[in-house]
């Protein structure tokens, strides 16, 4: 039903505009409802409106609809500015620096964690084979002893418990436990048919699984930390807000990988992207979702602030006020979190667009394609100098 309505409206207005109107309409409706609750005058207006004859209702409805459309257009032009506020784009440099310090520390922490995780992973990978061989040899030696007096120690129990709880395993503890198990296997047989022997045999198997788990765990941790740094931080030049950092990731990616200034070439790249009828709608959809959430977030903030200030002076809504005062910020936070997720997805699409279509852009600019990555790096730099700064670098152009 809603889909059909959207499709019909789309024939009149763009989909982005229609979808972007939804938060504003909801905002206007909710404000109207609040006004109805607190204002007897507004209630009288509504009653008077409902009592009007059909012709007057139609005229008034049309006027209201036009007002909403104009308001929607005006509001849609503000979306970029509102997003930039959330990105911390217009802050005083001192304030921006102070706010970004948190993210600089977070980045440093993540990088340190990544460094440690990589080190652990490297060490475990290096030792894995030798540990396995060591345990196998010890088992062979122990088989000849014909005795078995084994009991699982507390440390191994703890390590196995950490494994089943999907927690990190300390490398030194693991190393110690492998040594202990090697000694135990050397002095005890695993082939005898008694409970202690069977337990030792089982624990050797568990030890091997523990080593494999440690490798997998640190591998996953390295990947997770790496992705977090890649998706949430634009290199070392950190922005004052989380959204600002995510927003700068794509530009940093293009700059660091290809020396391509996305600020300058994004509009041109979009022209190339439009030719791909599969990719471009996905990109547009992602941007539309992001704008929708940004609008929703700001309208929730505005709605909350208006009524949290107005209600006390109206003397109305004793029960509504606490709900609004708590629910408004909670909802704003939820919209912000969802917007961050969407921004990450959108940013990834932009990065993919840079990877996949930058050479098509060069073709579009009639510039011969570079033969290797280093040449491409220099080419984008030179192109930027010429197009953005008016440098007189000469280019060989390729006729279509």
């Amino acid at each position, binding site marked *: 039903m809603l889909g059909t309505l959207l499709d019909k409206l789309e024939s009149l207005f763009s989909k982005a505009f229609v979808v972007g109107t939804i938060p504003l309409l909801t905002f206007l409706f909710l404000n109207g409802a609040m006004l109805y609750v607190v204002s007897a005058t507004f209630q009288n207006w509504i009653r008077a409106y409902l009592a009007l004859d059909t012709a007057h209702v139609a005229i008034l409805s049309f006027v209201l609809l036009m007002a909403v459309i104009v308001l929607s257009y005006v509001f849609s032009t503000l979306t970029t500015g509102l997003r930039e506020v959330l990105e911390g784009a217009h802050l005083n440099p001192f304030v921006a*620096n*102070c706010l970004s*310090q948190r993210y600089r*520390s977070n980045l440093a922490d993540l990088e340190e964690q990544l460094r440690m995780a990589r080190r652990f992973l490297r060490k475990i990978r290096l030792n894995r084979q030798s540990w396995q061989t060591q345990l196998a040899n010890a088992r062979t030696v122990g088989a000849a002893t014909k005795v078995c007096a084994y009991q699982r120690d507390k440390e191994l129990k703890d390590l196995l418990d950490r494994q089943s709880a999907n927690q990190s395993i300390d490398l030194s503890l693991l190393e110690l436990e492998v040594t202990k198990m090697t000694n135990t296997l050397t002095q005890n047989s695993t082939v005898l048919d008694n409970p202690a022997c069977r337990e030792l045999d089982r624990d050797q198997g568990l030890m091997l699984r523990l080593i494999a788990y440690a490798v997998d765990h640190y591998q996953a941790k390295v990947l997770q930390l790496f992705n977090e740094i890649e998706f949430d931080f634009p290199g070392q030049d950190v922005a004052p807000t989380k959204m600002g950092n995510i927003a700068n990731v794509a530009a940093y990616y293009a700059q660091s990988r290809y020396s391509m200034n996305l600020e300058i070439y994004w509009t041109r790249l979009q022209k190339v992207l439009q030719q791909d009828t599969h990719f471009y709608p996905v990109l547009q959809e992602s941007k539309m979702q992001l704008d929708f959430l940004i609008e929703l977030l700001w309208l929730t903030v505005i709605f909350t602030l208006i009524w*949290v200030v107005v*209600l*006390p002076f109206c*003397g109305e809504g*004793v029960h509504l006020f606490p709900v609004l005062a708590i629910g408004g*910020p909670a909802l704003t936070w939820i919209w912000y979190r969802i917007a961050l997720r969407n921004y990450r997805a959108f940013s990834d699409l932009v990065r993919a667009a840079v990877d996949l279509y930058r050479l098509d852009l060069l073709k579009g600019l009639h510039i011969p394609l570079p033969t290797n990555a280093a040449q491409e790096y220099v080419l984008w730099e030179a192109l930027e100098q010429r197009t953005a700064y008016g440098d007189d670098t000469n280019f060989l152009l390729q006729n279509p």
Partner: protein
Amino acid sequence: MSINSLTQKFVGKLLRWLPFVLYASWVLIGYRILLENQVRRPVQFRYVATGDLSINHLVSTEDIVADASLPWRDRIWLPKPAEFEGKYTAHRIARGQSVELADLRPSPMIKPSRGDVAYAFSLEHQPSLGDILNAGASVGICAATCGGESVNVLAVLCPAAKRNNCSVVLDLSLTQVARFSDPKNVQLVLK
């Protein structure tokens, strides 16, 4: 301005929390303002019954209390309790239900049970009963002897708001009326 990274982080934290602190402070202040400015609903401007009031109950100031949700300072706008005192309930009012002047009348509507008669008995010899008895109560009759039967009080009639020289209107059968042949020697006992 050049400051070290720790100070910068601290200032950043302050700046980040400042809007939340300001908002929370305003919410607390705003809620207080709201409670002070709260629009009083007409339904709050009322008295409620402190107990169950039978029909023809002679209302005293102890029978009514201002609605608890109405702040003390606004209770001055309520009608004076004296306006309720000495009037009779026109219908049964349960405990906690609102009591308005419209629910009261200046005199009781006496309606004895079928086959019985309403008998007014002066309490001049038992003035203390005037403070205790009210419509709906049951009493026993002691003439020469005390009978075991209970008699319903239909109403209590007092000449003034103060309960002096009151009479009770009893719902009596004709045989019970005969026991009142010498009223001076009749006493009522509470059941």
